[in-house]
């Protein structure tokens, strides 16, 4: 899970940097609800989760559940479909 955590951190950092946001963030810092991530940024996370973990989001999802590194990990642990 540590590898996954680091990979997700890197992904989120890359998205933030692309948006010109160079502020740091902890694993629990909010990115979606705080407005640092826009819908398209969340989409990048979704595509990553689809490709990397084979998740299927076609039944819909709540973007605020991908709000932080910790929330994404918790989303993965819960099987993503509750």
């Amino acid at each position: 899970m540590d590898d996954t955590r680091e990979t997700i951190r890197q992904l989120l950092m890359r998205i933030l940097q692309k948006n010109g946001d160079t502020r740091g963030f902890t694993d629990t810092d909010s990115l979606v609800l705080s407005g640092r991530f826009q819908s398209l940024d969340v989409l990048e996370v979704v595509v990553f989760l689809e490709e990397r973990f084979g998740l299927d989001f076609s039944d819909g999802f709540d973007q605020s559940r991908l709000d932080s590194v910790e929330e994404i990990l918790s989303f993965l642990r819960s099987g993503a479909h509750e």
Partner: protein
Amino acid sequence: MKFRLIPPLDQSPTVVAHCQRPLGRLAVLATFTLFLALLGDRWLVIGAFLALTAAFPRHRRSLVSACGILIAIALPDWLDLPFLDRLAAREGLSHLPQFAIRIVVAAVFALLAGLAALAFRFPRRLAARRPVLSAVLSFCALVAVVSMAPLTGWSRVAAWIAILAIARMLWFFCYTLTDRNSRDREPVPLQAGLWRPAWMAATASGTPFAKGAAYLRRIEAHTTEELAVTQIKGLKLLLWALFLRVGQLVFEYLIYRKLGIPEFEAAFSRSIAGHPFAWYWNCLSLAAAFLVSLLQMSVWGHEIIACARMSGFRALRNTYRPLESRTLAEFWNRFYFYFKELLVDMFFYPTYLRYFKKHPRVRMAAATIMAAGVGNALFHFLRDISVVAELGWWRAVAGFQTYLFYTFVLAAGISISQLRGKPKDDPSRSWLRRRLAPALCVTGFYCLIHVFDDTNRTYGLREHLVFVGRLFGL
């Protein structure tokens, strides 16, 4: 130190600590209500609601829901009352009593609550799995049935009151339906109060500000410190809205009174009548109207979000520096955040996550067209559904051509913008090329298509295209 018109009081530990004490909370509430009174209508009702949530923060969610339902029923002017009066007169009724409207609105709340309970009970049924599609199709079917059914007198008026009420609650209701699978979702009565949230008591808009219950759960202030910070941010936002409102009035006075730039409606009417103003007056008129609409949107959205913050929810602003946008997609996000979020949640994500998975560019374009094009048009058509009763289906749809064109151009523009991506923020390039030029292009695009941002059925697409021609001296 950087000068700020409104000091960052929410970052001052002393102020935050003071605002957690009873006297501080009272001062914040009183100041907020005063600003609200200066800014607009319904300050007393909203002030009372905020006083209740401030007095009983532990019962915030119940109060939000109870007040939302009560205000929506007691003050039903979020419905198109002039249309209902005309309809009642046509049906031979001498007048339309408010209590009749209230009863029907209460019945609509009960009906939607029943449907939501069914969706929660059977989340895997087809209708619950495709909630937006089911809700929109059911609503259209209802309108079709009521339009064609041999209803007269009270029954026809009551049916249309119900239709108008559902139309204005539809997208809030869709957020409830999308919350059906959440483990920690609230029961239906608490969700029902968010179908006309109390912080939207002063507006008839059908756009779900602060989205639905799922979002509110995550942005609710849980400690007294969080609450104090959120409320101070609400107060600051409302003060900013006041400044913008004054700015708007001064701007309008200078532009229209002092400089004599014609108002957009006047310029457009002259164009239709065949006696247009000179092209530069038309351009100035359009630019002024566009800037005024930005200011109006900012003031309106800030007021609503400030109230949501004051009641204890850390909601993001609706409008945030749109003129700084460097892409068309970014402008949309910054200009009308909660409408964009609605379209993203209800149209963009479902399309993106279900179709064209092996074709990334097609996937993105299809999802954008569904949101900015189809969803946008659908939202506005259903919002003004009373037009169907007045003009009939064919004329209501045909008369919508101008706004359909607007959504088509908007969707095409945003799709291209998203496929191209954000321009690189290369520090070696000058500020003019890096920031100003893209921002001007984006603003110019939105300013130009503002001509077609017209949901009235008074003039057709041809007249709007002729006006665009006049902008270029044609």
